[in-house]
């Protein structure tokens, strides 16, 4: 029995950095370099991952599994965690958020995600899921002085706790049917079961387990939390939920279906096909009506979950590889969108879509980047989103799921409408005309209504006192470097995934074998 700690190295490093951040923050004074310390965590984990990659196998009584699938999702998790901390650096300065706890919880959620991806034992998957969920419930409610944040945390928590209990009940039934919770053993026990279709207990178990994972990836009957939580949470955490949480939950989902329940495919395949169609359509239709950018991204993320789910429904090695590819591209395009959103929200102090008005003139770099991320989300070349969606489409058509592929394309066209709405705001609408401050090159400032009112009253008075005009609140900080870096990284990878997909195809193809 191998008890070496080596296979757990990346997770251990992440835990150690989380504790280091927590302890370093203990004093009440402002700690310099806290954010940098937190960012070192996922980087160290990536290094550790490089070492672990040379030691595939199963460790610790089969509780821990190192294979190309787990390596892929761990890489995704650490990259996502790193980018989210990068996004947070600016955000936590401007909001009443306790930095040390915030970073610690992000790192711990990252640990949970990577644990979820690197085990074929339901116990570990469940513990990882809970570590991720509990951290994210707390992270969503991190802005203690904002009602919306607390409300989002409460809703997320209550619904999450109910669905995790449902998931557990499903697991306990599976345990009863098969006598194990180790996924390959479940599969071999189910393979011997005669009447899969008629086994009511098994049907209940499968439905309950699917519900538990479906909640985390926001599939339609269990999506209610998504828009509220996306809107109320701190924006970097919204991004974290959209990319990290979703990817990890899909990792568990794929592992469960492909390793544990392939024998019951006739049970879950039609159900998930229906859910996928409803999810995409609902998400896209509702996103059309939104005025708040974060809420719109919430519905968009529901729709995206539907696209990603098609890969699971088709259930061939190719379609699973396409799912992984799409998740990879999805990580970077979403982080990019949220980085731009945070930048605009810093400038305009608003997360409404109207705040993007005239962004094309004010900040062409962010506007163009955002447009490219949107192209990728819709699935238009030359972006990673296009490649991912094309691959999904191709896999679906190949195994005679043409109707599903067609629904996906129709939905992509619908989604074009609401993304275009934002793009139109950025270029075709004039700059905000009336708002003082915004007229002066988009310097509408951060929570200074009194100053704004005094300068905007009579123009004569303002011009007669030029020194008063100079005392207009200046930007508390110049455009943050961290956000720019995040946008550039995401942009490069989205384009790389779109223009040079071959090595990535080979990589996900190997990972999708779950070997």
């Amino acid at each position, binding site marked *: 029995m191998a008890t070496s700690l080596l296979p757990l190295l990346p997770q251990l490093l992440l835990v150690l950095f989380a504790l280091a951040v927590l302890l370093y923050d203990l004093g009440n004074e402002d700690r310099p370099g806290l954010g940098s310390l937190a960012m070192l965590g996922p980087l160290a984990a990536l290094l550790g991952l490089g070492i672990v990659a040379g030691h595939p196998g199963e460790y610790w009584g089969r509780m821990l599994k190192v294979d190309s699938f787990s390596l892929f999702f761990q890489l995704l998790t650490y990259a996502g965690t790193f980018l989210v901390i990068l996004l947070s650096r600016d955000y936590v300065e401007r909001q009443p958020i306790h930095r040390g706890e915030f970073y610690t919880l992000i790192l711990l959620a990252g640990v949970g995600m990577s644990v979820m991806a690197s085990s074929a034992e339901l*116990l570990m998957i*469940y*513990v990882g899921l*809970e570590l991720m969920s*509990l951290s994210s*419930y*707390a992270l969503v*409610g991190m802005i*203690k002085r904002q*009602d*919306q944040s*607390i*409300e*989002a*945390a*409460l*809703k997320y*928590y*209550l619904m999450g*706790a*109910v669905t*995790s*209990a*449902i998931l*557990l*009940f499903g*697991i*306990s*039934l599976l*345990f*009863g049917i098969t*006598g*194990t*919770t180790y996924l390959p053993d479940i599969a071999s026990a189910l393979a011997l079961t005669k009447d899969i279709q008629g086994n009511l207990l098994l049907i209940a178990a499968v439905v309950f387990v699917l519900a538990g994972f479906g909640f985390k990836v926001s599939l339609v009957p269990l999506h209610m939390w998504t*828009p*509220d939580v996306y*809107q*109320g949470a701190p924006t970097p955490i919204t991004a974290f939920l959209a990319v990290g949480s979703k990817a990890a939950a899909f990792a568990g989902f794929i592992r469960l279906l492909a390793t544990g329940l392939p024998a019951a495919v006739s049970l879950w395949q039609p159900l998930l096909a229906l859910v996928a169609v409803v999810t995409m359509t609902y998400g896209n239709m509702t996103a059309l009506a*939104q*005025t*708040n950018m974060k*809420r719109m991204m919430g519905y968009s993320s529901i729709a995206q979950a539907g696209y990603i789910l098609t890969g699971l429904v088709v259930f061939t090695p190719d379609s699973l590889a396409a799912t992984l590819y799409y998740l990879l591209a999805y990580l970077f395009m979403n982080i990019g969108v949220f980085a731009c959103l945070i930048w605009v929200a810093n400038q305009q102090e608003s997360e409404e879509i109207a705040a993007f008005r005239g962004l094309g003139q004010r900040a062409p770099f962010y506007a163009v980047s955002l447009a490219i991320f949107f192209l990728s989300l819709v699935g238009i070349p030359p972006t990673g989103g296009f490649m991912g969606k094309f691959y999904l489409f191709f896999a679906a058509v190949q195994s005679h799921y043409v109707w599903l592929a067609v629904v996906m394309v129709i939905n992509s066209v619908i989604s074009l409408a609401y993304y275009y709405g934002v793009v139109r705001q950025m270029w075709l609408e004039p700059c905000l005309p009336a708002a003082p401050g915004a007229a002066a090159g988009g310097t509408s400032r951060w929570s200074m209504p009194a100053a704004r009112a005094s300068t905007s009253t009579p123009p004569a008075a303002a011009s007669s006192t030029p020194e008063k005009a100079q005392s207009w609140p200046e930007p508390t900080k110049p455009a943050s470097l961290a956000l720019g870096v995040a946008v550039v990284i995401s942009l490069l990878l989205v384009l790389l995934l779109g223009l040079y997909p071959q090595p990535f195809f080979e990589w996900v193809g190997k990972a999708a074998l779950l070997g």
Partner: protein
Amino acid sequence: MIPLGYILGFSALLFGLGLYGALTRRNAIRMVMSIELMLNAVNVNFLAFSRYLNPGDPRGSIWAIFVMTVAAAEVALGLAIILMLSRRQDDIDVDKVHSLQG
């Protein structure tokens, strides 16, 4: 021994009761209590299956310990969130929390 079916019926009843409570109660604390019921039903299931189908196998008990741990963490966090809410408003009726809509 009591037949396994009785125990499963009991746990299903407990789970249903919890689920019903979690979906119909409007007081956040009561919802948390209902969720605890659901988790306890899960524990009953695990222990019963472990005892009846595979005596001597500790797996069911291990699951129960982990479920209890997670349940404790979940309740602690839930109460903390509810506490934050109650500091900002008098009521913890979830129907009165609706600033997020659209």
